[in-house]
């Protein structure tokens, strides 16, 4: 009894000692922010070391690929630089740096109120050292943990840019934190990152509630929050949220494209049945279809909402197939996409079939139902999606220089392939961030937060990933980044899943204006 008690108290003292030690080192960290910065950079460099060593572990065969990849990236970077040089905004042309105080109009109707920024606000925070620190809160755990790969993909492309053509001689660093798709965690993450991680700007945070919750915080802190990765139409509001921009094709724009395509291919007054995921994203589709109906283009004969956490949608699909509508719209995502394919293929129903472009990862969502998808395509009911970008893994693009570049960089810096997850999306997202930052650095006054927003709101970028159109912003005149897409059909050719383009790229560039709400 006595010795047990002794052991316990010794353990207690050791635990207390650990605690005290922890608090001890904390103090130096909290009192001196540069300490924190150096520590952070140490962590970053250790990560890099890890990546490098991993890369070294690859065989000589991979080394050959590496040199190719470097060349590819360099040439890509060169084109980017030349673009940056040619991209001259109004202010850049005048050669005068934008002021870092007062009301600064960075683009049409887009004014940054720098007087309202915190007292300790610094336009160059996060880029003063030899790093450009980009923050991101995204789900690495929970139901949507698969999106965590986007952050990794961004880091891979940052690493490759840092190695080949660094911006201003500085390293792009991505600081990520897990929010499990919970707004509460994202808020704490963003506030802590603002305080301690020396973040220059946030980019590509994923999810509607997350971006809703954080854009007030970043707006009040006068820190850019670029490329909200959610298709909610609210992310194009430069008047009220000049520090915040959207990214992907708005789901409302997508449903407009469907509407147009239904009229073109089925005819006016077509009957439509829709499966809608009951959340922000699905309900945006619902609103789009209802708008289409009220314009007299279609007639909605069946609409089933399903819970995002439901195990399957069999019941809903049975109800919808009973309507025998001309058109079926799958306004859902992830695992539900292949389920709808199986349900339609298993029924007598052969509608014109539209599906959310969030399911365009063929390897993830269509491989399990490949035969059924092929059968549907043969029977005139192929799955149609409005894609804006080339999908990595589609054999059609196997020889495309952009896709090859993606595969090389992912392999070299991460040892992963497109089939392993959303890394290729992260690759494109990383390129977008790098391009805006590079253009901001080229402006008079150099890289700072005001120039970043200036470059952002006057942005024009055409990465090799696009099927058509361009990524462009122009203040209130054009507040949405992605507005072009092409309706494509999923087909199976020679045993491989592939997209077959139907018609031309539909481009709403400059027509969607800004968010009015």
């Amino acid at each position: 009894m006595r010795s047990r008690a002794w052991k316990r108290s010794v353990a207690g003292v050791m635990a207390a000692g650990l605690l005290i030690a922890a608090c001890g080192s904390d103090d130096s960290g909290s009192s001196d922010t540069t300490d924190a910065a150096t520590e952070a950079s140490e962590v970053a460099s250790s990560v890099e070391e890890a990546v490098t060593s991993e890369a070294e572990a690859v065989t000589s065969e991979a080394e050959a690929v590496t040199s190719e990849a470097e060349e590819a990236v360099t040439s890509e970077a060169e084109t980017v630089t030349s673009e940056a040089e040619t991209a001259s905004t109004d202010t850049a042309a005048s050669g005068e740096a934008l002021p870092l105080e007062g009301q600064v109009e960075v683009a049409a109707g887009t004014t940054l109120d720098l007087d309202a920024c915190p007292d300790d606000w610094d336009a160059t925070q996060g880029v003063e050292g030899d790093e450009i620190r980009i923050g991101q809160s995204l789900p690495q755990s929970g139901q949507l943990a698969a999106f965590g790969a986007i952050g990794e993909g961004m880091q891979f492309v940052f690493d490759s840019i840092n190695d080949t053509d660094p911006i201003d001689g500085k390293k792009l660093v991505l600081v990520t934190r897990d929010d499990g798709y919970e707004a509460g965690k994202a808020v704490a993450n963003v506030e802590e990152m603002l305080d301690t991680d020396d973040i220059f700007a946030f980019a590509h945070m994923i999810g509607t509630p997350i971006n809703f919750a954080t854009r007030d915080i970043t707006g009040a802190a006068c820190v850019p929050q670029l490329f909200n990765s959610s298709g909610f139409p609210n992310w194009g509001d430069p008047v009220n949220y000049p520090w915040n921009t959207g990214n992907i094709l708005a789901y409302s724009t997508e449903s407009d494209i469907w509407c147009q395509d239904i009229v073109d291919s089925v005819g006016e007054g077509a009957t439509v049945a829709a499966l809608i995921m009951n959340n922000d994203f699905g309900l945006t589709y619902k609103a789009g279809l209802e708008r289409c109906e009220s314009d007299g283009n279609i007639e909605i004969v069946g609409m089933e909402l399903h819970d995002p956490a439901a195990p399957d949608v069999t019941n809903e699909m049975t109800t919808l197939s009973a309507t025998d509508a001309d058109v079926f719209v799958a306004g859902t995502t992830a695992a539900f996409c292949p389920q709808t394919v199986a349900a339609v293929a298993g029924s007598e129903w052969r509608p014109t079939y539209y599906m959310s472009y969030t399911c365009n990862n063929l390897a993830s969502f269509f491989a399990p139902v490949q035969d059924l998808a092929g059968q549907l395509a043969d029977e005139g009911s192929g799955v149609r999606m409005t894609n804006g970008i080339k999908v990595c893994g589609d054999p059609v693009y196997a020889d495309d220089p952009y896709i090859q570049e993606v595969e090389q960089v992912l392999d070299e810096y991460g040892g992963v392939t497109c089939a392993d997850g959303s890394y290729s999306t992260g690759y494109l997202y990383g390129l977008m961030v790098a391009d805006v930052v590079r253009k901001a650095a080229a402006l008079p006054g150099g890289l700072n937060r005001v120039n970043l927003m200036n470059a952002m709101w006057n942005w024009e970028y055409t990465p090799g990933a696009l099927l058509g159109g361009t990524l462009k912003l122009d203040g209130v005149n054009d507040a949405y980044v992605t507005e072009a897409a092409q309706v494509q059909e999923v087909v199976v050719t020679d045993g491989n899943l592939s997209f077959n383009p139907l018609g031309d790229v539909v481009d709403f560039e400059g027509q969607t204006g800004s968010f009015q709400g």
Partner: protein
Amino acid sequence: MAARFRLLERSPQARAYKWIGWGLFILGVVLFAFAYADTAQITLLDNDYAMSLTRVNKSISFMIAILGLQVIVGFTGQLALGQSFFFGTGAYISAYLVANHNWSWFLSILVVVPACFLIGVIFGLPALRISGLYLALVTLGLAAVFPSVVQLEQLQKYTDGAAGKSVSSSLVPPSWLPLDGIASFLQSIPLVGQYFGDGDLSSKEEERLWAFFLFAVLLAICMWLIANLIKSRPGRSMRAIRDNETSAAVSGIYLAKDKTLSFGIASALGGVGGIVYVAEIGIASPGDFTQLLAINFIVGLVVGGVGTLSGAIVGGFVIAFIPDWASSTVNVPGVPERWLQGPTGTLFLGILLILLTFVLPGGIVAGVRKVKARIIQIVPQPPPGATIPPAATDGSVVASVAADADESPDTSDGVSDVTGEASGEDLRSSATSDGRSTS
């Protein structure tokens, strides 16, 4: 092995100990708040652990919710796991009142508490018929439906559906409060001043500090109310129900009333926690109030200590910080880096839960109490008329009656093992009854 110091209940020493203890605790909380008004990073083995008031404020909301669970699970013994439902309800109601009707955060308590109490009572009614695992299942179901309920089309205009109800109103400190003055005073203290940052507080830091103090006071009020409840007649009835329903009923306790009351109080506390949560975070979104949160509350309850009030504080802290700290852990000597990536937070909480169940079934608080009992012990006053023999053999001034009551640590260990939920209140009350029986 007796405690190093023994103090007689209500003696001047015991009073001094109590007041000094509380004073130091409050001082510590205030100093902590000023030191961490700006997020700090704690670096341990090359890992950076963030420590921010934002997260502390979030943990306070969890603490209040877990306090509710203590009432229903810890003291009444009903396995109700759906606390996230009431947490979310409170969050949404107050978000709606503040955003759409310009109420102040604290005024919304007046609506949230009765509303959640009522809903709790209504859901408590079926619990009169079902118990144990079945009750756990039903209440967990309640937690599962919450995200879908707030996204119902009919509620869309109140809850803003899946996008979440965002509120921009923040807690602004009153102008008379010299937060800046206190900060600069603390900074001017030699040696320790450097730990309180430098320069004036920014408006954001002031708001955080103010929110923290308000929430801390709210938590203290809730704790005080529940502490009184537990000692009062309904509280004793609840504990009797927990220990043995049949004998409680035989002793004249109206089970239906006390069980539903307990459900109501637990739910009301869940609602108050929700207010704090949304006041801090600024958005009530369906993704935040899922089953996972309900399970996290249970984890916090067990890790902190079932049936202890302070266990709620430890538990809230654990579930707010451990997942984040676990995912910040990227370097552990001897562990491959690959193992430390991904959702390590959940894994770590799970391991903690399993470990504690085996090593410290009473939770962290029970462990701390065991250690404290070795150092200092407050023994009850001998009943009036008892003869007080000369000083005890171990040299400390103490009544032998009290020494009888708690003769050896084995007895007290035995008591804690029997009750399983080794709460200090229980220990003390059993000591008192022993003392009386000896006299």
